[in-house]
């Protein structure tokens, strides 16, 4: 079995990064969180517009997602900042959940600290002390079975379904064959792939639940009175040559490889420990989708793109691959791998899968993605279904 060098956490999980996370519990703590992260070496701020005035299911999703950020193995310690205490999604509640992992977690409340300047000082001091503590950790060998691997695609064109996605499927299969797990998300992009899903699910019941989730998403779109074709495929997909949601789906589905589908998991929910492929209920929206995957505990994600995409999740390094030679040449600043040799016959899909796998292992061992180096953290967004209240 292959291995990578990771940071082993008190709960037995293994991170490929050792981030100090400055987590904003609510929109009103965003500036303070950013000030602290800008001051502390290697700290990452996660900010967002949510955590207040949301309908209950959405507030739960926000809570679960923020907790998932802190629990993610790539995070060594956390400072949660909030502006006030309100039931449902407070910094204390978030920190309490994260602390179950055994990681150091601190809370700062802007109101209780005495305003923005005092809260910034308090949070910066707490962050510094956690940073001192987690900076002592060293990478150790960890079996690949410890990996939770994310699969996503975006700005797809027809090369995605023909080249980079099926190659990514081979990479995912290789990880699962060694006891690892993968997450396939973007339920909207499974429309048209239902028959395959039924064949691959571990039990007929799991297959039917996933098909029902696809139909549920489709119904939500229908009931909005919209023709889903107006948004799926997206405008950039259409320019890239995709003509229908079914075509996009069948291309997107190629990245799932051939492993058994073990279960359907909710947005931001951690899968069971059994090796295999898990389907997560997320929309096709890239940032919302990969945030759900990161909140489930995935350490690394491969993002397959046709037209080129700059997405990178703040705490889950995101390797961008393409098999469109034009996109690679235009976007070398942000794309890690060019697999376009697939189309001139020089590279089999399986060999391309090996190239992706090697890049994943190197990234797990510490090689930075281009977007990490450029601090391109464009990939955090929490999925919501209801109105603001």
């Amino acid at each position, binding site marked *: 079995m292959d291995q990578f060098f990771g940071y082993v956490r008190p709960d037995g999980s293994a991170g490929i990064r050792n981030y100090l996370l400055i987590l904003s519990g609510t929109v009103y703590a965003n500036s303070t969180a950013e000030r602290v992260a800008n001051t502390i070496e290697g700290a990452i701020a996660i900010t967002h517009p949510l955590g207040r005035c949301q309908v209950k299911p959405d507030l739960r999703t926000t809570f679960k997602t923020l907790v998932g950020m802190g629990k993610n193995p790539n995070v060594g310690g956390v400072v949660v900042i909030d502006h006030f205490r309100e039931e449902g999604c407070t910094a204390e509640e978030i920190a309490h959940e994260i602390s179950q992992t055994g990681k150091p977690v601190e809370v700062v409340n802007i109101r209780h600290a005495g305003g923005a300047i005092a809260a910034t000082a308090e949070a910066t001091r707490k962050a510094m002390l956690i940073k001192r503590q987690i900076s002592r950790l060293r990478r150790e060998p960890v079996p690949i079975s410890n990996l939770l691997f994310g699969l996503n695609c975006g700005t797809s064109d*027809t090369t995605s379904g023909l080249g980079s996605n099926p190659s990514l499927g081979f990479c995912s299969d290789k990880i699962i064959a060694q006891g690892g797990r993968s997450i396939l998300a973007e339920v909207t992009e499974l429309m*048209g792939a239902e028959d395959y899903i039924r064949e691959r699910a571990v039990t007929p019941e799991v297959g039917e639940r996933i098909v029902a989730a696809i139909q549920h998403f489709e119904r939500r779109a229908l*009931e909005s009175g919209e023709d889903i*074709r107006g948004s799926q495929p997206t405008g950039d997909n259409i320019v890239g*040559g995709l*003509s229908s949601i*079914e075509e996009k789906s069948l291309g997107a589905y190629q990245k799932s490889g051939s492993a058994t589908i073990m279960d359907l998991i909710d947005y931001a929910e951690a899968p069971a420990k059994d090796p295999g492929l898990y389907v997560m209920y997320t929309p096709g929206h890239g940032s919302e989708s990969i945030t759900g995957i990161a909140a489930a505990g995935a350490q690394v994600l491969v993002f397959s793109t046709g037209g080129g995409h700059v997405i990178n999740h703040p705490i889950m390094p995101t390797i961008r691959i393409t098999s469109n030679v034009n996109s690679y040449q235009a976007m070398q600043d942000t794309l890690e791998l060019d697999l376009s040799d697939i189309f001139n016959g020089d590279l089999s899909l399986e060999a391309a899968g090996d190239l992706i796998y090697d890049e994943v292992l190197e990234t797990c061992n510490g090689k930075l993605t281009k977007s990490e180096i450029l601090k391109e953290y464009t990939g955090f967004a929490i999925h919501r279904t209801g109105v603001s209240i």
Partner: protein
Amino acid sequence: MGKKVYVIKPEDNTGTVISDNVRAGQSIEVRIGDRTELIKIQSDIPYGHKIAVRDIKKGEQILKYGLSIGTATEDIQQGAHVHIHNMESNRGRGDRYKSEKEKEVSQ
């Protein structure tokens, strides 16, 4: 020289252009399963877009990955561009749903 049009399954009636240089009037060799066919290109086709690798009748399913990705809205000639102007999705059709609802209400 690499392929210019990529056909995934032998039963597919479309292939994908994987070249920046597919122009109207060219005749291109396309591999479909075990056979190779010389197809005359009807218009300039952008990279990543589809062409018909055989004649497709209006109402026929458009096939890629060996599966239906939509329905032809007009007769499509071999070598012609296949895209949103001459095919439509069968899924997520809120427009049809809306008119069906209106029909239900008027009944």
